[in-house]
């Protein structure tokens, strides 16, 4: 059954990674569309109304992709991870069902109104629909992150008859110490994606010399929101999230940082490759004592390395975890620099004329997707070898009777289906961009 477990993991990793390319965009755009809607309501100008409608159409394409790729994830808890869902369904069923009842219904019902009701609803109700879509998508994230936070730091459960976990306190589940910073870090990551896309589209229009008034609006909103979110992503949310990891999963922190040996005054590594055989980092470039300071606010503090923990409790793929984490941090730092530079140009009044800056903003568009993906890889690889941290090993979570050939079959099926979906998405998004925010939109679908 060993290989079935590998395919189970790969299938979930693949489908979840592909899925999350879209919600990060929709959650970020949900906020920005709401801002545009508010501006339209306050100014009453057609310009803002068209801008909001244009981004609602982009939102809708991404939302559709997010929904159709999200359903397989909920199914897979049962199809591929029956050991996990039987063991923990009594606890995580609460947050999963809450997501459906409180978030999905809200989001999809009001998106239907937003797309189809433009002529039937008053401006105020349309604005309210945009608010509900924003609330629905962010609440959805809250409940799914409450589920993930519980897998990282199980709280509020008790062992029931027959070994399965049962809920002891819903309050404890929803106020999990892991949850607040994870939620904020994740959401500001989504705002980064949304605002980089918005700024990138604005820059694209200005470079082309098309829809220039819209281009300037998108740039202004995208750059300001992007700068705030990019800074917040590193401090305080990223910093606090890192300290949560250090506190609750010290072995994960050691693997993320590539710290093989316990040290006082541990350095932080900027570049270097983990060498699993020699148990050291090859050709490291380090900042001395920085890790100790960041983790414990004390330059000489002792940080536990991997050697402080038994080998079977190490995350099972240390190099991948290390690279994912370093890519996330590196990109996050670049985002702050690029956005602060853009805001400076905006303030000086030179952003709209500087082709170099506009090109930079266009070229940066794919990178928030990579950074968010790397961030989730860090969270999920870091939790290994546990599916429920400290309680259930990943190997015990998979379905015992689903043979590896079946999982491989469905994995290949998903790979094919999602390739087609990706092509469709790019084609439709490009058409929408090409058509631009003209007042007579094509019929919404």
């Amino acid at each position: 059954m060993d290989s079935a477990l590998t395919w189970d993991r790969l299938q979930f990793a693949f489908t979840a990674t592909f899925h999350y390319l879209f919600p990060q965009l929709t959650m970020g755009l949900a906020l920005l569309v709401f801002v545009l809607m508010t501006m339209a309501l306050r100014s009453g100008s057609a310009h803002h109304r068209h801008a909001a409608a244009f981004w609602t159409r982009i939102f809708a394409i991404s939302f559709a992709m997010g929904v159709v790729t999200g359903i397989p994830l909920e199914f897979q808890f049962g199809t591929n991870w029956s050991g996990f869902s039987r063991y923990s369904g009594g606890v995580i069923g609460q947050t999963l069902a809450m997501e459906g009842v409180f978030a999905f219904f809200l989001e999809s019902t009001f998106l239907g109104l937003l797309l189809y009701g433009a002529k039937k609803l008053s401006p105020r109700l349309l604005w309210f629909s945009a608010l509900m879509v924003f609330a629905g998508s962010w609440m959805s994230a809250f409940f799914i992150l409450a589920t993930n936070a519980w897998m990282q730091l199980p709280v509020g459960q008790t062992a029931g008859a027959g070994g399965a976990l049962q809920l002891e306190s819903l309050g404890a589940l929803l106020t999990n110490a892991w949850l607040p910073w994870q939620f904020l870090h994740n959401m500001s990551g989504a705002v980064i994606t949304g605002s980089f896309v918005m700024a990138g589209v604005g820059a694209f229009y200005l470079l082309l010399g098309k829809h220039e008034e819209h281009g300037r609006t998108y740039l202004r909103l995208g750059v300001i929101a992007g700068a705030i979110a990019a800074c917040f992503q590193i401090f305080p949310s990223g910093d606090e999230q890192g300290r949560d990891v250090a506190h609750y999963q010290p072995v994960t922190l050691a693997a993320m940082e590539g710290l093989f040996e316990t040290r006082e005054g541990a350095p932080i590594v900027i570049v270097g490759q983990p060498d699993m055989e020699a148990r050291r980092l090859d050709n490291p470039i380090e900042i001395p004592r920085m890790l100790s300071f960041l983790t414990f606010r004390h330059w000489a503090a002792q940080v536990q390395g991997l050697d402080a923990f038994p080998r079977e409790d190490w995350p099972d793929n240390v190099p991948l975890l290390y690279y994912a984490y370093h890519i996330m941090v590196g990109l996050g730092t670049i985002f702050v620099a690029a956005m602060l530079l853009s805001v400076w140009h905006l303030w000086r009044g030179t952003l709209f004329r500087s082709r170099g800056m506009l090109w930079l903003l266009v070229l940066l568009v794919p990178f928030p997707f990579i950074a968010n993906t790397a961030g989730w890889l860090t969270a999920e690889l870091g939790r290994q070898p546990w599916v429920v941290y400290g309680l259930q090993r990943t190997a015990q979570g998979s379905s015992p009777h689903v043979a590896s050939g079946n999982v491989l079959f469905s994995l290949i099926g998903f790979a094919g289906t999602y390739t087609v979906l990706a092509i469709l998405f790019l084609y439709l998004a490009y058409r929408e961009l090409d058509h631009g925010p003209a007042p007579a939109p094509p019929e919404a679908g």
Partner: protein
Amino acid sequence: MALIWFCLLALLITGYVLLDGYDLGTGVLHLLVARGDAERRQVMRTIGAVWHGNEVWLLSTGGVLVLAFPALYASSFSGFYLPLMMVLWLLIMRGIALHFRNDVRSALWGQFWDVAFAAASVLLAIFFGVALGNVIRGVPLDAAGDFFLPLWVDFRVSPNAGVLDWYTTMVGVLSLLTLAEHGALWLAYRTDGAVRGRSARIARRLWPALVVMVGAVTWSTFRVQPQVGMNLAAWPWGYAFPVLAIAGLLGVIASLRGGRDDRAFAWCALYIVGMLASAVFGLYPYLLPAIGDPSIGLTIYNAASAPHGLAVALSWFVPGMLLVIAYTVFAHRTMAGRIGVDEGP
């Protein structure tokens, strides 16, 4: 407490079938009732704003299954691995077809997605029926409550059964007919002009076939699942559910003959409620019976979460769902009224 959640689960499933049922039925029939791009768009507009919310009932049913009966969720989803993966791909295909059909104004693009929408809807309607058939018939559970079903073996109802056998196939066909009727009545209720006339005609033509299949499946169900007969004998008030279904069926044809297609849709909903309630009543206390050895079947008691979790969930689930129903009604009202051929989006 487990019984309450059993009833809530049945309500959610019924809500899903009633709501997404008309979307699926619309998909099954739209190639037949709508001719040309303008009429196809007209048909799509009847479900455009609401099908998404309707599909969420399926997701919420899944969520509640994990919450209230995790052992059932774990066992059935892994046991039906292959058919569920196909359901996923079909749901993706339908969703994409509905979302993207009108994004590009090109004759071929629209036709391609129309066929994809129809094919996915037909197959989903059959799959959901087959799934219900499997749950009624039972599956070869082992002592740990696990199983794995091949797609088909020899089409006989036996401990060696596959997902498809003669009984589950019949339920699949019944489901296709039922949802087609439901969709035809929805379109007759929501559209104007030629589409309305064709939909009402199809609903009338489907009706006799539906009655025959209902009879055949009911008779077979008593043979395949003895629990149904035992429950009816123990609690004769359970006959009320099949009577509801029959009343619904009669109401459908009476309203259609009287030209009241809006009422016919409501009668059809009553028929579906009656059928699903009969199935749920007949299976009680089983959620997933075992073929061969009834004692190891999954029941609402041995598959349920602990009472505390169920009680806590009840306290947020009921107000939450009332809220959902409130704004679902609001959305349907906003979008209410017959839709003509040439209306804008």
